[in-house]
């Protein structure tokens, strides 16, 4: 496949997801509602508990990261979910494209959307709680966002794989599993407070490292030696694994007939 066709297929999916997103007012509302509720409640709680400025920043970073990852991963999962819901999955697997076009195309929309959510939350955090996202500098912020996007890609593709493996009944199960994993990533606490066994899991999650690196600029000593490099390496590893799992799931769905079953 030529580069032109590669980009075109990704662009086709990007355009499709963007159109679907723009058409659904309800999605739009949902997209903003939970992130805003998150930042407000965490911010207010930190005021009630009289946290120091650094501590408040710590938990706000956590809740913002969670929102960004959630919005972005949901969009990545739309790569198959939109078609599963409307029972049109077979058409795109009849076309000469690969799953990379589906996931990358959705990821692009996910990044744009979650970036918009991030800007909004940052503004809200600054206005309501005096929290400044740019305090660590542009580079640190960019790395933090990249970490969120990569984590979202891995999570979203894993959800796609689970759904094509178990059918649409597995939807709820898929969300639950991946969200449980995310909560372990030290969203609201340093992983040093976790029991050893659970900390080991948290250490296997890339987001943990990106959070750690970003928070080190708010006065929390880094728990790892090279958090960003480690986070990137882990992300690459999981991205490859998730991609492979999705590929295998599609392969299996073609064999078992699930692909057809999800299209009628």
């Amino acid at each position: 496949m030529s580069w032109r066709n590669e980009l075109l297929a990704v662009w086709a999916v990007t355009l499709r997801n963007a159109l679907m997103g723009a058409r659904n007012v309800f999605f739009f509302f949902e997209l903003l509602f939970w992130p805003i509720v998150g930042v407000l409640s965490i911010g207010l709680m930190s005021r009630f508990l009289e946290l120091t400025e650094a501590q408040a920043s710590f938990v706000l970073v956590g809740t913002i990261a969670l929102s960004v990852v959630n919005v972005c991963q949901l969009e990545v999962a739309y790569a198959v979910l939109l078609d599963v819901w409307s029972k049109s999955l077979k058409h795109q697997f009849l076309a000469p494209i690969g799953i990379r076009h589906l996931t990358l195309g959705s990821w692009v929309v996910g990044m744009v959307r979650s970036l918009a959510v991030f800007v909004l939350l940052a503004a809200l955090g600054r206005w309501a709680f005096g929290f400044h996202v740019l305090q660590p500098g542009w580079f640190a912020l960019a790395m933090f966002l990249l970490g969120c996007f990569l984590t979202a890609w891995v999570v979203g593709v894993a959800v796609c794989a689970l759904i094509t493996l178990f059918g649409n009944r597995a939807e709820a199960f898929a969300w639950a599993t991946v969200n449980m994993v995310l909560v372990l990533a030290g969203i609201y606490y340093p992983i040093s407070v976790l029991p050893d066994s659970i900390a080991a899991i948290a250490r296997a999650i890339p987001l943990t490292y990106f959070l750690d690196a970003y928070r080190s600029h708010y006065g929390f000593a880094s728990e790892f030696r090279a958090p960003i490099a480690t986070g990137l390496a882990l992300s690459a590893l999981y991205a490859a694994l998730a991609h492979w799992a999705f590929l295998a799931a599609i392969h299996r769905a073609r064999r078992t007939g699930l692909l057809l079953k999800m299209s009628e």
Partner: protein
Amino acid sequence: MVSFLGMLAIDARDVEKTFRSGWPRRRETQALRGVSLTVERGAIVGVLGPNGAGKTTLLSILATLLTPDRGTVMVLGHDVVREAGALRRRLNMASGRPSFLWSLRVAEIIAFYGRLYGLSGAALRRRVDGLIELCELGPYRRVPYSDLSTGLKQRVALAKSLVNDPELLFLDEPTLGLDPDVSVRVRAHIARLRREQGITIVLTTHYMREADELCDEIAFIKGGRILARGTPGELKRQIRLGEVIALRLDPARVPWLAEIPGVLRCVELDGWVECTVDEAEKRLPELLRALHADGVVIRNVQVREPELEEVFVELAK
């Protein structure tokens, strides 16, 4: 018309497919039990058979949506399992129960799939416009898919299935639920696709008239096996249903008619005597001669081939 005389578009041998579903108790359905099918380039072949016969399963395997358990399947010279990628650009499929993303509009749906097949810019716009015109979707190009009627949805599916200019087209019950007027046009359209562009078409249908009218050849499938194969005419002869000679006679009843050699049975119906014979061309003069010799007045004669529907009913037994 483009001619690919003698070249095979499809060469499937001993294809088997068993579905396993259900948990914890496994259910097995043998959908295909050793199907072999060849289709020449440029032909229209109909796959007929009762519900659950395996028609959709067969088409899905040929279109790379389903992998066969056993057997070899070559489509347009590609192996459907090993060379699926290259094959997919050259074929397409539409079904009578189509579904697309609900809130996308007609033109957006066609354009989306067009891009997946590598079209862009002016070429994509031209193709989308052309297909919208071809499928008479002009007034609906900005209508969301969910707001379309069944027939319009099917036309969108047909337009989508032509977006990559396929050499081979699979149509699974393309006229399901369409009103007669639209069905006629869809059929004319299918015939034109083959005539003008030389597209090879494999279709399934439950409308025998459609199969009779459109198909060069018919494969009859039941219980995952192909039971009969041939032109509609050949099938009718193969089944030995016989042909019907209907007579209006005076006196209306002639008891000895059924005893004439070659006459299989006679029934009276609304003043007509319907004699089923092995071969009308040979038996008609004999019948007339005998009636004449007996002094029976012949007021009217009609000769009818059996309908494909009767062949279907006979085969499906």
